[in-house]
């Protein structure tokens, strides 16, 4: 990927840390939960990026920090060339970022009709004229295909099916005509047959309005149909970032490799074999392991390196960067050759 011009970048995240203070008895500080730990990336206009990781890897905290729902402990968010700092910035910024929540029913106020749900963001953001508001509500409902619009306006969330509720959540995220949509597991609560419909809808809206999109998910297979790039998060850090097909064809980080190997496609042959699964569990974010956070589970761990220093990002291909010491020589164009014998599973592709 060519280095994008500054104008091309919509969102720039620089050295973002979101740490939660943990106190005992209300005042004795015990430590910090390092949910997001030094995350940096650029998002271009009109680009869809998936943030993939398991529960507890910090992906939702990252989403909420980007939305301004958590204040970053350190680091900066630059949106459209303007750093987001104080309350005034935040107000300006939030009107330009849409949020699609995971659980549509939980995200919609049960006592408000569809019309009121969509009316409120407009009112808050100073669209005073009622006819103008109604026109915009009708237009957005039409776009998310909750039609005929007149039938849906007076309904309450419980009168909608799961798929329709999620369309309404998308409509609410879109009503202020944002430039960025942040979707946190938007389809994980939906049935398979509805899931694809919502993904198509989001994809269509994204293309039509040249939206940037951050898709937070644990599901690489939906990300594939949806995003150009993917970031893999583990233990609060982005450990690998690549164009999505690259990531699927040639994952570099041992964690990404393990993740991909664990995801089944529907295939009767699956029943005949056991899958390789790395031992252990994701690291505690309160006391993360020193060095690479994956090293206690990693079959290729290099003693004295991986357990000491945090790996920087190494460039292994066009737009493909990986935070793993195995690729430390790839920088000079030489593949790492001194990888030790692995303990389990297939050999790494490199």
């Amino acid at each position, binding site marked *: 990927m060519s280095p994008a011009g500054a104008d091309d970048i919509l969102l720039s995240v620089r050295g973002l840390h979101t740490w939660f203070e943990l106190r005992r008895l209300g005042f004795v500080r015990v430590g910090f939960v390092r949910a997001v730990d030094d995350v940096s990336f650029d998002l271009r206009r009109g680009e869809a990026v998936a943030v993939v990781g398991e529960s507890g890897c910090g992906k939702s905290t990252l989403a909420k920090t980007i939305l301004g729902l958590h204040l970053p402990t350190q680091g900066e968010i630059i949106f459209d060339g303007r750093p987001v700092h104080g309350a005034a910035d935040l107000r300006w910024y939030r009107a330009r970022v849409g949020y699609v929540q995971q659980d549509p029913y939980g995200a919609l106020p049960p006592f408000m009709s569809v019309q009121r749900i969509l009316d409120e963001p407009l009112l808050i953001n100073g669209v005073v004229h009622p006819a103008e508001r109604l026109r915009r509500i009708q237009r957005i409902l039409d776009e998310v295909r909750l039609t005929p619009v007149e039938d849906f306006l007076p309904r309450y969330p419980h009168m909608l099916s799961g798929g329709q509720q999620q369309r309404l959540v998308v409509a609410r995220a879109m009503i202020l005509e944002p430039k960025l949509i942040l979707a946190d597991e938007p389809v994980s609560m939906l*049935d398979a047959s509805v899931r694809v419909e919502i993904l198509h809808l989001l994809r269509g809206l994204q293309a039509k309005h040249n939206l940037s999109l951050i898709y937070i998910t644990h599901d690489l*297979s939906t990300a*594939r149909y949806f995003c150009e790039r993917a970031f893999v998060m583990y233990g609060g850090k982005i450990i690998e970032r690549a164009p999505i097909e690259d990531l699927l064809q040639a994952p570099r980080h041992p964690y990404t490799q*393990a993740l991909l190997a664990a995801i*089944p*496609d*529907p295939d*009767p042959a699956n029943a005949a074999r*056991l899958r390789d*699964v790395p031992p252990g569990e994701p690291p505690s974010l309160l006391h993360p392991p020193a060095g690479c956070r994956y090293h206690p589970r990693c079959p290729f761990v290099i003693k004295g390196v991986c357990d000491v220093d945090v790996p920087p990002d190494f460039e292994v291909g066009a737009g493909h960067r990986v935070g793993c010491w195995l690729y430390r020589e790839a920088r000079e164009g030489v593949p790492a050759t001194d990888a030790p014998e692995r303990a389990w599973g297939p050999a790494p592709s490199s």
Partner: protein
Amino acid sequence: MAANGVLSAEDLRLYFRTNKGPVQAVDGVTLSLRRGRTLVVVGESGCGKTSLARAILRLLPRNVETYAGHLWLNGTDIMALPEERFRREIRWVRLALVPQGAMNALNPVIRVGDQVAEPLLVHGRATSLGEGRRSADEIFRQVGVPLDFADRYPFELSGGMRQRAAIAMALVTVPDVVVLDEPTSALDVLTQANIMNVLKAIKRDMGTSFILITHDIATSSEIADDAAVMYAGQVVEVSQAGDFYRAPLHPYSQALMASVPTLHETKALGFIPGRPPSLIDPPRGCRFADRCPMRFSRCSEEPPLIRVDEHRQVKCWLHA
């Protein structure tokens, strides 16, 4: 359709009473599970698959309107048994359940090891807690729970370990059949793969027969020998795993399969327009007809389960 296999359901019905009328959650389900095999029941939310699990174990809420049909377990019709005999001799002795969401299935104030040993005490398989705990330890080893976890409380375990404990609790009495209701849907990818490995090993080592109820088609293929598809309270297709995952027959199964995103191969994804019918007043004919791209005049009559070949049955007029 009598007693072949370890567990057979014949025209099983479970209707719930509501003030709008009876909800036909399980409506005439006929299925057969062969010994040592895994039958996967796939369906979307609201299709009645959890109600089917409850109907098999006779774990019924109070608002049951109709509970009828036959359930043959090793040739005995267990539907005919009175409640007390069912509790003493069948439930958790011969038929066990791994309920949905292991977090909620475990008692938060009892140590995991004691909970797993409890079915043995209740059913007189162990005379003391110590004896029960020794059998529990054996099961823990098989499902991969470290033994020092047995003295912990459920909240001290990770999701994967809790799920393993729930599986251990179902296996501790060495039942003939274990019904797994969405055993991995709340878990992470790696944990899910781990649990499927555990189930495969148990199947291999203990010869347990499983009924796996799930909405996750990709994961279900990890352990399936046979597959059944539920739609609107009815079974619409039964076949062997090899046929089902490669070439399902019912238009609903086909559409469902086409909507599953795949990671390792490229295909165009489809979705099913519309929504499933209400189970309070389901349509008279084929229940999928409204959403079916292959609908024709005959679909206004209800199709029977049509036998296509030795192992495949499909409830669709296209195969008549």
